[in-house]
């Protein structure tokens, strides 16, 4: 999976198009430009960058392009999650800035998990007997 990186503005533009559907640069600028104090030019180059990253599709209408999201948020998130967790599996799981709840990358032995589950269940029933 290619290393996909997105800046703040790129995410803002994507969010805008997810909400508004297909639209051209001027309309995106109308919604985002004033609030964020950025020029139409910046919006245009951001759209162009997202298109080159494969996150937007575009069709030419007259002189301008109309941009539309190439994938839904859920699919982009899945791709990002895959990209973020994949290198952890290869390395010792260390050179990253995260601490995960459990190491999803680690191969868990089903039999060992079953044994642990039985241990927890036994403790649970002993605890409730002790209270009852």
């Amino acid at each position, binding site marked *: 999976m290619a*290393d*996909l*990186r*997105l*800046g*703040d503005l790129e*995410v803002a533009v*994507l*969010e805008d198009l997810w909400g508004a559907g297909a639209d051209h640069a001027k309309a995106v600028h109308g919604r985002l430009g004033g609030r964020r104090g950025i020029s139409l030019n910046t919006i245009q180059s951001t759209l162009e960058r997202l298109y080159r990253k494969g996150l937007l599709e575009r069709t030419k209408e007259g002189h301008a392009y109309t941009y539309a999201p190439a994938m839904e*948020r*859920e699919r*982009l*998130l*899945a791709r*990002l*999650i895959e*990209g*973020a*967790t994949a*290198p952890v*599996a*290869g390395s*010792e*799981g*260390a*050179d*990253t*800035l*995260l*601490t*995960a*709840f*459990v*190491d*999803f*990358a*680690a*191969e*868990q*032995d089903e039999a*060992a*998990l079953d044994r*642990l*589950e039985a*241990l*927890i269940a036994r*403790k*649970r029933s002993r*605890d409730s007997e002790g209270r009852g």
Partner: protein
Amino acid sequence: MASLVLILAAIGLVVAAATAGLSHLARPAVMGRLVALPEGQRANLLLLWAWLPLLAGLLAVAAVLVPSLLTAAGLMADHCLLHGTHHSHLCLLHPGTTPTVPAAGPLLALMAGLLAGGAAWKGRQLARAGRSWRTLRRVAAWERGDRTRILESGRPVAATVGLLRPTVLVSRGLLERLDPPQARAVCAHEAAHRRRRDPLRLALARAGTALHLPGTRRALYGALALAVERAADEAAARSVGDRLAVAEALLAAARMRPAAAPGPGFCEAPLEARIQALLADAPAQGSPWRGAGSALAGLTVAVLALSPQFHHGLETLLGHI
């Protein structure tokens, strides 16, 4: 001056290497004692241990420089003039008294170059590892404003990301597959990681252990990783009020592992250790004075090392080599 800096660097390196060697030898005994400590304190001591070779090296260099600096500040009579020049001196104020090392300048430049190159490489690696998580955090940022961000995805994710201002990322898919106490346990566990800045601790340990021998490096990092997870597990158990709910959440999350994830089975032991610890009774809260003894010992060593006698002894030793 280049000779003096080179000698100082060599002293630092030798002391750091000796500390790393001693750490390696003492590891089984020290690890055995650390296991008995509460996990929060254990994590702090392991981080200190990770940095011990570097700290010892820096302390040695500081010890050598103390008389020069005290003299420059007018707090001490000039040591090397008082003492005579029958052997060489490690002195910032009288460069002529320092032994000269042939080709000190080029050697020093080479060392500095290697060090800068290594640091830059490590920094880039760290930045690259964090990049995809930062993007993920940005996309999630629009969904929830507070410090815990929900990822609208069916994939199981529960992670704390970021060094200085960590954020908790939890996916909808994970929360929906857990029962409410388990979901609370996961969120409390990650919140504890965020409060304790555990990603920063692990990154610091990674940097510090670079000077340890490979076996010790892995053992220290592994022990620290387990200690921070255990500390977060205990915090979650206190917050939810049910130790078994945390154990059940751990097990449920382990079973959700995406089928395609590669990697050898090196992480079974930590999961087993964490669940076994949660099945045992809650550990007693540590007394605030427990760390006082080791702090006092450290302070004593530092005071002894920074005394003029240590400086003089080292000079005499080097002068006769």
